[in-house]
């Protein structure tokens, strides 16, 4: 199912970028350009061949990691992706971790104290997190913690006064741990805190609600009452019974939210000047670099499809009812 979905997605992006606007090359230049420049430009990007050929060239390149060339300097988009993707990955992993953990903790608390002041407060919090634009939350946190209190850096990934850890994965915190570089770990962690909290808070609302609903539903089920009647302890019931049963839908939600996470990452990165794929995408838009735009968008799409696939497999492994 994943393969035809990716194919459709690729076609979709192709239609949007190459066919919808007529001619992306013409769109790139704000002022009139000479026909020669235009022809040269098209040839360099491979836009001079018929559309169908363009389509197959593009499809054929994807499996080999070819995401096209940038209109800016004709460098392969995949090179930029390679450099910037670790930054995005680092941000998204920590944000997802933060969102899921906070969501689980608050959701469980909310379900355990059903219909109490705490419960209503947590529900309200989850609704409000849903209504805040992620970049506005980022700006508020920046204003408070960086500008007013001065505790944390306003943006970017690393302090230029220190040297970055040796590149292994490209994710600074992981690299620092792998190379045993404690200073780099502390510095990169300080830079990570605000973007992670921003992105994670926006996402955690949905996990709070999901955990709460599922916990409530599970706690009302017969087998939970039956376990209580057998004298099992409250902790055992809440964590190994209710939470474990509530966890599978949450796992599915992690997959579904991964797309939202990447979308949020684009805005968060822009707010914090985080040098990841999101800022790259926004910069390319400002330069009317439509081929680079296409490459990054396609990359995002394939990434999400892959993550969904992996989670589906994991799901089947964790649920004994699906296990073969």
């Amino acid at each position: 199912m994943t393969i035809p979905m990716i194919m459709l997605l690729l076609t979709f992006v192709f239609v949007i970028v190459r066919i919808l606007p007529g001619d992306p090359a013409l769109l790139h230049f704000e002022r009139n350009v000479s026909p020669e420049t235009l022809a040269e430009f098209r040839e360099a990007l491979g836009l001079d061949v018929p559309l169908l050929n363009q389509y197959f060239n593009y499809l054929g390149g994807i499996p080999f990691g070819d995401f096209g060339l940038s209109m800016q300097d004709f460098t392969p988009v995949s090179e930029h992706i390679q450099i910037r993707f670790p930054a995005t990955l680092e941000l998204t992993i920590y944000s997802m971790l933060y969102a899921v953990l906070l969501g689980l903790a608050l959701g469980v608390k909310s379900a355990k104290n059903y219909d109490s002041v705490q419960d209503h407060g947590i529900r309200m919090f989850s609704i409000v997190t849903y209504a805040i634009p992620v970049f506005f939350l980022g700006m508020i946190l920046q204003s408070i913690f960086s500008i007013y209190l001065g505790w944390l850096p306003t943006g970017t990934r690393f302090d230029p006064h220190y040297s970055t850890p040796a590149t292994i994965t490209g994710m600074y915190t992981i690299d620092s741990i792998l190379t045993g570089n404690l200073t780099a770990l502390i510095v990169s962690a300080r830079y990570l805190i605000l973007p992670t909290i921003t992105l994670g808070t926006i996402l955690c609302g949905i996990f709070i609600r999901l955990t709460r609903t599922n916990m409530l539903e599970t706690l009302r089920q017969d087998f939970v009452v039956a376990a209580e009647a057998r004298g099992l302890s409250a902790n055992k019931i809440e964590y190994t019974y209710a939470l474990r049963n509530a966890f599978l839908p949450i796992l599915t939600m992690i997959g579904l939210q991964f797309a939202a996470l990447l979308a949020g990452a684009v805005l968060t990165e822009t707010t914090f000047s985080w040098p990841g794929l999101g800022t790259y995408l926004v910069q390319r838009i400002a330069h009317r670099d439509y081929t680079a735009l296409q490459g990054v968008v396609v990359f995002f799409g394939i990434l999400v499809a892959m993550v969904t696939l992996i989670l589906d497999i994991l799901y089947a492994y964790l649920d004994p009812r699906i296990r073969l």
Partner: protein
Amino acid sequence: MSQQAKAISGVFYFLIPTSGDWKEKSRNFLIGLSIVLIGVLVIVASFIGLALRSNSGIGIWVVGYTILCAFIILIAGAYRRFKLHEGLITPTRGWFLITVVFIVLGMISALVGFFWIPEEAASLSSALVGGGTVLGVIVILLYDVFPQLQDRGSAGYVTMTGLMIVLAIVYMTVVSWWIVPYDPTRLDVGPYGAPPSAQFPLGTTSLGQDLLSRTIAGGGIMLQVALISVVVCFSIGVPLGLGASYRGGNVDKVISLVMDSIFAFPGLVLAIAIAAMLGPGVVNMALAIAVVYIPSYFRVVRSQVLTVKELPYVEAAIVMGARDRDILFRYVLPNVLPSAIVVMSINFADAILTAAGLTFVGLGLPVTVPDWGWDLTFGSHQYIAGKWWVITYPGVMIVILALGFTLAGEGLNEILTPRLKE
């Protein structure tokens, strides 16, 4: 206590103490009512205060006229209640009456606008018609719908709060042009990036625009974008979901696959790609957002149809030889619509946030159009220097508007699609 009494006295029902512990109850009612009344008074007073200082000079008359319209609607609502109570008309006829009053008032308002300032007729008429209608809807909601929603417990209050927030912002936006103290589109009306002062209560932007005026008028773009995109989504997603899932077979498979692949895509990234290729503009922005959210409708409708199709009463209808059309519209659709409406109200919030996001990455409208998203984006270069006001007010407005839609969706979700019931 009785349904009858509730239906007659509307929101004023809560003034009537119930039997028994009436002292305590009426005290709670009075506290609640005074909170509501104070809130309403503050809002009305601020509108009037603004209207008195308005740039157009006739702000107070515009606001006064819309309040008059609302009052007429209130009288019509009370008349309907009275007739209904006496048993003289059916509820349907009653709603018909209200609709007629709305339409007549709207036409009168359009004419008033036309004769008042002929050269500004289009703008003034739309402000009068829109403002009168929105205030009228608020009145009808409070007077007629609230007592029914109140029976649903907290979900009813949540829905009502959400709807009120949204309608209040719509009203503000509709009449904004006539009540703003300065022209929100003009640059250099004041100093550059000045903090809040008596002359500019919310401060000015770094281009010298009055932030208060822009905050009042800035909802227009977002509301338009959200409305267009939601209408497009709804009118494509729902029929597509109905048709595909009811037919089944290969058509369903193909459409589901297409929808799933769009759904799996990071929404904002896809919207960015489409908006970048379509170029700036309200409709383009709305279309870019619409494409992203069609699958949410499709999926919800589809799963509902698949469930409903298997229900015994639908099977019974099929066995009895009902036509496909009848089954689809009279059996399936009524079961599907509630979930679609819930998706719609959440979708409004999503559309607003996505529109703000698109503006933030530089795909918004030109500077002259007042828009919260734009102010917020532009302010992101200023607040680092400590100018907190340039982002705070537009940002808070976006949050309030999105919160209104989310609350309404949340409440409707509990009312229309009950899941967790005792």
